[in-house]
């Protein structure tokens, strides 16, 4: 109960902070950068459930993100159906695809799993790129309507920002709930020892597929939010590079830490905006920061913060769920 109160307080605190940010700053040109960060955070939180908790890597999550974005785009634009239909269809399709892919794929382990998810991501990318009649091909898909829900059009960037922040808060809360349950324990158990999990009666295949589908669904939610925010999608946003960036967000933020995933997503999405002033050497700095972070923060940003807190308080380390 105490743990739950702390989670609730943390999420509430997060919402207050996120809500206050636009008021603290005078110019809102960065609002979309933050909205994008939160969208990425939604995927990173899901991917962390899969990677950080259940210990299963995926190098194909950009594909789920893209698949949902394109599905909603096509349904709302080409077929002119309501946005809610498009979004639901996008999320549902990803759920089904993830389930079907998950069955054979999650039997693989370690690098072989990485390779299989990567291959799947590439196949989806190529299909999006080549079914030009449907997706608009490499030049992208234009004219997607801006999000309207229950008669309210999220026209301003600020309203969209709040919407995404609230959805992210829900995703965080749901994920925290999951971790602190028998399901969460089962996932962490699978991570450390598959045989030990099996013999105490945990159906590891079922849980692996469950968490894979769940993380794909989070990516899909992010995908449809993205499509109706930018109102344009192009295949290049959903390629292998983005999948790797997502994994980087999770590891840099801190494996097995929900708040770490959020921080990692924020950090890696906003970092290039900072580095812009350095122009040419931006990419060098980006690479160097990545290396330095991993060298000095082996537990990611979350791990580093936990260590810091431990030093400050001189007390016991924080619990894993954080």
């Amino acid at each position, binding site marked *: 109960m105490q743990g739950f109160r702390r989670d609730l307080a943390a999420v509430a605190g997060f919402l207050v902070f996120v809500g206050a940010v636009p008021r603290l700053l005078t110019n809102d040109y960065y609002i979309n950068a933050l909205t994008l960060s939160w969208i990425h955070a939604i995927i990173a939180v899901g991917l962390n459930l899969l990677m950080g908790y259940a210990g299963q890597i995926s190098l194909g999550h950009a594909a789920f993100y893209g698949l949902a974005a394109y599905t909603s785009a096509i349904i709302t634009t080409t077929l002119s159906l309501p946005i809610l239909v498009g979004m639901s269809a996008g999320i549902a399709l990803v759920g089904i695809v993830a389930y079907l892919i998950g069955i054979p794929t999650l039997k693989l382990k370690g690098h072989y799993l990485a*390779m299989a998810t990567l*291959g*799947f991501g590439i196949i989806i990318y*190529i299909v999006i790129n080549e079914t030009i009649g449907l997706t608009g091909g490499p030049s992208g898909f234009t004219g997607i309507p801006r999000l309207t829900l229950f008669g309210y059009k999220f026209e301003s960037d600020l309203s969209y920002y709040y919407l995404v922040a609230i959805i992210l808060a829900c995703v965080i809360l749901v994920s925290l709930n999951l971790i602190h349950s028998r399901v969460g324990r089962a996932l962490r158990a699978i991570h450390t020892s598959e045989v030990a999990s099996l013999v105490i009666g945990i159906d590891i295949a079922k849980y692996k597929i469950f968490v894979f589908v769940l993380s794909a669904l989070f990516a899909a939610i992010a995908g449809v939010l993205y499509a109706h925010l930018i109102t344009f999608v192009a295949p290049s946003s959903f390629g292998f590079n983005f999948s790797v960036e997502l994994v980087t967000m999770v*590891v840099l933020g801190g494996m097995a830490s929900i708040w770490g995933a959020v921080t990692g997503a924020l950090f890696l999405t906003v970092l290039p905006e900072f580095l812009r002033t350095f122009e040419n050497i931006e*990419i060098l700095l980006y*690479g160097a920061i990545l290396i330095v972070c991993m060298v000095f923060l082996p537990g990611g940003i979350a791990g580093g913060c936990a260590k810091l807190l431990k030093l400050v308080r001189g007390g016991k380390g924080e619990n894993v769920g954080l």
Partner: protein
Amino acid sequence: MGISSYLQFLVSGLTVGSTYGLTALGFTIIFNTTGIINFAQGEFVMLGGMLSVFFLKWLHLGLPLSVLFSLLVTTLVGAAIEQFTIKPVKDSSVINLIIVTIGVSIFTRGLAMLIWGKDTFALPQFSGSAPLTFGGVAVTTQSIWILAITLSLLFLLRAFFTKTIYGKGMLACSYDRKASYLVGIGVQKMVLLSFMISALVGAVGGAILAPVTMTSYDVGILLGLKGFAACIIGGLGNPFGAAAGGLLLGVLESFGAGVISSAYKDAFAFLVLLILLFVKPSGLFGQTRVERV
């Protein structure tokens, strides 16, 4: 389509495939001693090609000398990467180390872009550009160079791993690092060595490929990706598997483009690889490790 077309697909596929195979070989060497998938492997290939171009076009050293220097420099870069980025975090988890190599790859690519710009460069073919034709099937002399060098590298590496004390030490590390340390193998030295050899193999690939595929600061991305796929499909850790995986991927792409659809050739190749993985979950030539509980 005649038989000569199919033969042509095969030859093209083998040529492209050996480029993947060479990259895959580099992955395998580092993986075997450290357990890391080195995402910067593609950058070694890039450096091999770009440095050759650099020595040839800017410093006018002549082709053989340029290639030699590029191999040397890339090997040193490999050593530097190990010393400055891998060694300080050697006790980190494997996934952290992999992220470090991603950082290294971004950094190296960025540096190459700043130094040599964003253009593509070509290296002259080693022995003239006139292709040889066998019954309607064209084979460039460079393809023969590539195949020959790939094969000799494979055998050299095999000899190295089975005959020399260093090679055996590296193999031992791959089986059990702690045990190797206990029997007095300098694990740290072996890791350094594996990065150097891997860089060298990558650079050889980059230099011999540049005449055919051309080179630019960003060729490493795609080659890294395909090389990774090849070394997994061959069975991670097995150098011959890596080479075979590369050739298979190349041939699949070539036949995919020629017979099925050029738009979906990569999708076709990866689909076949996925099915292969589902049937053989530890790659074509990977040993299934018996889990002891």
